[in-house]
């Protein structure tokens, strides 16, 4: 059986390994491109958001490559992404494809269903013990990938030759791709850390610090968000993003002791005390956290027509004013052009620079 899954940043490396080891033939989804979006837009409802369109495009591309089944996730709470799997299945059926979507709903929704689906993916010859071990190992690889991406954005603003860090990162991905056993992955992780740390850097720079928040898919998929973190990194900006597939990095990033989802929600409470679906509540809490962490600004990424993020955006002006941190929102859909995003980023950076200079002058005067 040929099996595939949605493309989300660099996670495909870990999913590929896991499914391979379970004995499936894996179709690795191509990075979302113009063609992916064109395909998705052609068959998706016009008012669906960009994650829906890109995923649909990806399924169509992988079907061309021979995929028969895709593993994907559902969702809960008031965000329509929870219905996307079912919608995709129907659209693909109507187009005449014999393609099955295996949708994992979060276990909290229906524990039994989750176990049943896990069982369906588990091949007969593999014991539950081995199965769980393999999943754990895959998760370990995912963590390693997240860590390397995280390191890349930390080092980028200091690189002396533009593009060096990105090159090191791609090399590191290859090394992680080859590592198979738990030990190999652990060894590769050490090696990779060294490779990234070796990028020639100018540590005397004091880069602007920007936090990236918003809806999970557009935050995680560089091919959809115009490589925003890389673009900013190469403009000399230190970026940190609030969402990762694994929680590894959260421990290091957030205010000390604030690690979990609940803490983020607590931080949002002066402004918003209600789950509004998707990552809306998180977005508010994360602005507060970045402000307390001394970041210069925050960029909110959202798919055009994303209700949770639109609601969050309505609260942003007050949060921004009271926490003293500028926030810029970028809505993304298939119409969004890179040129417009670049103009806004440049202007936002100018704003942050001037703000920082003014603050420095004020502090000097007081001293």
């Amino acid at each position: 059986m040929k099996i595939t899954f949605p493309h989300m940043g660099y996670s495909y490396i870990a999913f590929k390994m896991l499914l391979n080891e379970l004995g499936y033939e894996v179709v690795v989804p191509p990075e979302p491109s113009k063609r992916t979006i064109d395909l998705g837009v052609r068959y998706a409802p016009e008012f669906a958001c960009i994650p829906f369109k890109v995923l649909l495009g990806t399924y169509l591309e992988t079907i061309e490559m021979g995929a028969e089944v895709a593993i994907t996730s559902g969702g809960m709470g008031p965000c329509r992404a929870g219905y996307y799997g079912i919608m995709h299945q129907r659209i693909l059926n109507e187009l005449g494809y014999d393609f099955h979507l295996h949708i994992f709903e979060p276990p909290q929704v229906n524990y039994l269903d989750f176990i049943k689906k896990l069982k369906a993916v588990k091949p007969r010859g593999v014991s539950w013990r081995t199965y769980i071990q393999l999943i754990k190992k895959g998760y370990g690889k995912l963590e390693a990938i997240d860590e390397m991406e995280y390191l890349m954005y930390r080092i980028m603003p200091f690189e002396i030759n533009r593009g060096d860090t990105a090159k090191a990162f791609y090399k590191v991905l290859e090394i992680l791709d080859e590592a198979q056993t738990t030990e190999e992955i652990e060894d590769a992780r050490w090696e990779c850390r060294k490779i990234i740390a070796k990028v020639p850097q100018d540590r005397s720079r004091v880069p602007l610090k920007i936090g990236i928040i918003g809806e999970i898919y557009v935050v995680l998929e560089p091919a959809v968000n115009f490589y925003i973190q890389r673009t900013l990194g190469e403009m000399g900006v230190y970026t940190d993003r609030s969402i990762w597939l694994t929680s590894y990095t959260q421990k290091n990033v957030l205010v000390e002791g604030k690690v979990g989802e609940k803490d983020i929600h607590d931080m949002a409470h002066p402004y918003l005390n209600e789950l509004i679906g998707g990552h809306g509540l998180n977005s508010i809490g994360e602005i507060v956290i970045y402000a307390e962490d001394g970041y210069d600004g925050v960029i909110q990424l959202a798919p055009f027509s994303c209700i949770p993020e639109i609601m969050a955006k309505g609260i942003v002006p007050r949060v921004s004013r009271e926490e003293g941190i500028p926030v810029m929102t970028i809505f993304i859909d298939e119409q969004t052009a890179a040129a417009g995003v670049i103009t806004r980023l440049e202007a936002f950076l100018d704003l942050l620079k001037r703000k920082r200079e003014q603050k420095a002058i004020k502090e000097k005067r007081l001293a």
Partner: protein
Amino acid sequence: MKKGYLGIDVGSVSTNLIVIDENDEVLASLYLRTQGQPIRVIQEGMKEISSLVPADVEIHAAGTTGSARYLGGIMVGADIIKNEITAHAIGTSRFVPGVQTILEIGGQDSKIIILRDGIVTDFAMNTVCAAGTGSFLDQQSARLCIPIEDFGELALKSKNPVRIAGRCAVFAESDMIHKQQLGHSMEDIIAGLCDALVRNYLNNVGKGKEILPPIAFQGGVAANAGMKKAFEKSLNHEVIIPKNFAVMGALGVAIIAREAVQKKKETTFKGFEVTDFSYKTRSFECQSCPNRCEVVQFFQNGEVIARWGSRCGKWDVQAS
């Protein structure tokens, strides 16, 4: 020799060139229509402005802004290439002392810039829709056979503006036609259109922003007196239209270029002769990976002087 500083703003609808001196005095300014041909219009503009500048002035810095800022910057050898938001903010804060809000409506984009104590603290630009920008007014003036220059005066004559749905340009047009067919006067319809555009602007671009006076209104659309009045009516404040409202972006970038050259000492400006070269842009789709990036190449006299557009950066050639 007197020192002059050149600013070029190449926008979607118009291209502005301006030369200022050390005291922000305008020595020469030029407003041209881009007509979708930025290369030609920059060449022509350079030729024209060189004849407008007093003979004893020498250009000591050049800057570009607007949507074709990179192209223009490469052509003239700009010392600095700046986005239009920063350029407008710098320009206006020199001419409207203490300005706290800038309303700017250009050909295809509209923006709001919020300043406090002379620095930009917030801004917004229209994102997914261009309803209510200059292009739409332009199109309506052509449809109604009224020169765009007379639009504002007509609006001022209205006593009883009609209500027009302004959220979407297409629906605004059908609503206007509907009101025409009912026999409303042209003045009332045009004034209603101005009100609708202001409403749309404040609800979209201006949403959630704290609009405090002094308020400056600029960009090509500020020439429309009807729009000024509509803004004043709905904001309950006086709206200032700065003297150089239509060329503020060019003015701002000229000031920024002057400051940049003061820092780096020497200009990279190629001179007004760029008109004599032939320029060409060609693009190709890179086949190295599934991204299929569209790589744009820019030729001067048949030689590649700049290349951009690839995600991985392997094709990039930066103009010196």
